[in-house]
């Protein structure tokens, strides 16, 4: 009996010792296991979470979506717009001790552009070559006058500086042990288990404080993520949904912060991609579909009114929103009239939807609303990879997708709606829109930029290659032990400035 008690006591002590060691550790629950942690190939939004802690970028974007310095101190766009000068911060070291120099920036940019299968190439298409002016000054020579856009892209994964020495040594395997210049250095990764990083002692910003260690834990089910937050297993739970929130309101150990997301949810129509575009080719038909939908009712019913209704690629409070084309109210009579004019009073089409709860519910809601206007919408569930493929090949009439959003409006529209845009599965082509969007990339006047994007929004609302429905809000659950957390519209957790009380 006493032997058993002793063993029990020993086990309990070991358990307590275990928790004591972990006190300087912040645990963050993310919604899926990230892909490889190499800025060149990283695609998933979840990948940005650990990468933001490990790899600092040349610039960053603040919560007001303004560019702020990070590894670079300043930038200057040449008067003719064909080059961008970036001045680096002195005294920055990578996690392996190597210094950050202009040569390193040149190496990393070349790597981003030239690595086979690089996913950053499309963000650097304007770059002709990179020149070293002096050890702390880089000149990007451009093919087109898109300097400002390049700066925004350098405030994302394309601007994450990796140690050239480590990149050369590890090659393709860099993603398994990234070496960068961020506030935390990579410690270990168990695939689908956790990613562990620890404070980098030689970080350039000596004033930065934060937990000693951070663990990123992929917990795919949001109910379990919340349970882990409430039980104290994790201290931050990202990507909560509106339906998760009520159970957290009563819990005194947890609080929820939110901010508007940069992206949008959209039903994309096949207007010009292969034979199946016949069904929705007529713009009157697409306008009829929109007229039969009540976005506000849907958001109120399905998302506790926590998401924002929208109809343009930026949300209604954005300076780039075209106020002459507001979110329309439902008008079933108009829908029926438009259908009669188009000669298809009993329209039938199929919507492809992935097996994701929010979109499935919304699709059913829309199906019911359309039925009242005499439109039959069939819902076909496909997994994401299949739907992506079908979109590319024009094997769809309508598909329900979303875009996670970028700080610069160009990131929300250029690849999606220009004639050659890689994500333009509708194959919608409007030369006037292309010209406007190209000009918007090049102008250095914020005033002109606003005018241009508003016009672009107006054109897209009229032509309707897709029907944008709502903009999400990001909801992040925090333990009351965490302070200093500021939610960011791009949903990426900035770990600098976070502190964890014991």
């Amino acid at each position, binding site marked *: 009996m006493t032997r058993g008690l002793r063993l029990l006591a020993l086990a309990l002590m070991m358990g307590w010792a275990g928790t004591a060691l972990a006190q300087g550790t912040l645990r963050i629950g993310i919604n899926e296991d990230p892909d490889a942690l190499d800025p060149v190939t990283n695609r998933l939004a979840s990948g940005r979470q650990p990468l933001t802690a490990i790899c600092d970028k040349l610039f960053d974007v603040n919560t007001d979506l303004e560019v702020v310095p990070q590894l670079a101190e300043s930038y200057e766009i040449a008067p003719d717009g064909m080059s961008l000068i970036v001045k680096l911060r002195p005294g920055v070291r990578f996690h392996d001790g190597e210094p950050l120099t202009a040569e390193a920036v040149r190496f990393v940019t070349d790597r981003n552009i030239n690595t086979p299968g690089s996913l950053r*190439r499309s963000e650097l298409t304007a770059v002709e070559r990179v020149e070293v002016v002096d050890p702390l000054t880089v000149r990007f020579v451009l093919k087109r006058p898109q300097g400002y856009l390049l700066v925004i892209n350098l405030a994302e994964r394309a601007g994450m500086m990796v140690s050239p020495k480590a990149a050369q040594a590890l090659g393709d395997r860099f993603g398994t042990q990234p070496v960068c210049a961020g506030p935390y250095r990579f410690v270990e990764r168990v*695939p689908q288990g956790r990613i562990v990083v620890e404070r980098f002692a030689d970080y350039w910003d000596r004033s930065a404080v934060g937990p000693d260690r951070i663990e990123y834990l992929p917990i795919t089910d949001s109910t*379990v993520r919340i*349970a882990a937050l409430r*039980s104290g297993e994790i201290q931050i739970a990202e990507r909560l949904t509106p339906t998760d929130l009520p159970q957290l309101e009563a819990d005194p150990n947890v609080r929820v912060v939110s901010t508007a997301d940069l992206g949008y949810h959209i039903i994309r129509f096949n207007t010009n991609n292969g034979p199946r575009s016949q069904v929705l080719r007529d713009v009157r038909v697409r306008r009829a579909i929109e007229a039969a939908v009540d976005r506000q009712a849907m958001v109120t019913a399905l998302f506790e009114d926590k998401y924002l209704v929208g109809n343009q690629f930026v949300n209604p409070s954005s300076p780039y929103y075209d106020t002459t084309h507001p979110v329309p109210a439902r008008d079933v009579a108009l829908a029926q009239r438009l259908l009669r004019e188009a000669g298809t009073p009993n329209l039938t089409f199929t919507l492809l939807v992935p097996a994701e709860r929010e979109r499935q519910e919304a699709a059913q809601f829309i199906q019911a609303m359309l039925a009242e206007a005499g439109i039959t919408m069939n819902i076909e569930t496909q997994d994401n990879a299949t739907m992506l493929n079908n979109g590319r090949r024009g094997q769809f009439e309508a598909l329900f997708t979303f875009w996670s959003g970028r700080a610069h409006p160009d990131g929300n529209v250029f690849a999606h709606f220009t004639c050659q845009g890689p994500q333009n599965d509708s194959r919608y082509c409007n030369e006037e829109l292309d010209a406007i969007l190209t000009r918007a990339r090049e102008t250095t006047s914020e005033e002109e930029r606003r005018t241009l994007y508003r016009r672009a929004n107006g054109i897209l609302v009229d032509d309707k290659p897709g029907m944008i429905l709502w903009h999400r809000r990001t909801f992040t659950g925090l333990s009351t032990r965490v302070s200093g957390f500021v939610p960011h519209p791009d949903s990426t957790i900035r770990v600098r400035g976070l502190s964890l009380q014991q």
Partner: protein
Amino acid sequence: MKFLTFLGKRLALAIPTILIVTVLVFLLQQLLPGDPALAMAGDEVDEQSLAELRIKYGLDQPIVIQYLRWLGGALVGDLGYSIRNSVGVTDLVLTKLGVTMQLAVASMAIALLIGVPLGVISAAKRGSIADFCANAFALSGISVPSFWLGIVLILIFSVNLRIFPASGYVPFSEDPWRCIMGFVLPSFVLGTGIAGVLMRHTRSAMLQSLGTDYVRTARAKGLREQRVVLRHALRNALIPVVTLGAIEFGQLLAGAVLTEQIFSIPGFGKLLVDGVLYRDYAVVQGLVLVAAILFILASLIADILYFLINPRLRS
């Protein structure tokens, strides 16, 4: 000697079985709509980058070449490369094998410890309250969905009572207590499901066994009922139970997808689901191969157990 030839024959049959399984899975994956390069790169990418990705991972080769390349690698222990995780599949599988094994063994232990005794009691006391309760338990174990049970247990034991962690796996070498605690809920969820099935099979095998002539003889000889049940009837009833147990264990080794998903345990199940969703062909191939091998090993262990239980097979 007879046993060794028997074992030898089983092993020899195993090899073509495994080969056929790998070919089937390979072909099935090719049938899946969706392009792995697109699934990996997402929609932001231009055609040139996609083409480069396909060349990089050998996806542009004809199917037969792709399969033969994979097979050649597998024979020397190289199961290919995981596009999603950017590591070799062999490494990936080996790191998760330990986790999956631990979960499988723990779940099976719970299933056996609950299911078999309940089946014996319920057969021995057929028609009584004990029988009724055991049957009710078995039925709920079989009917209750694992993900529902998992979440309910998390809410009760992790969130409210704070006894067990809600999710996640910590290696035994790093924190033994946390490791064990982390396995309790998931193995309970898996174990009770299997316990239900085992209980029913044990019960019916026992009832059959208890109705035989030799059991009647044993009773007539005046042996205590407990001795009759445990020493005589149970031994014969165990044979179908061992068969079932081996099959269930084999299935556990293939990964308990839903349970691993709920409890965020980095085992085979989660890896397999991600592999299919992201069209990571090499991972799915590698996992199926390993699961097939483990399944065959599990049934070989079952065969050994038959030999131990049933003296007639030894002669």
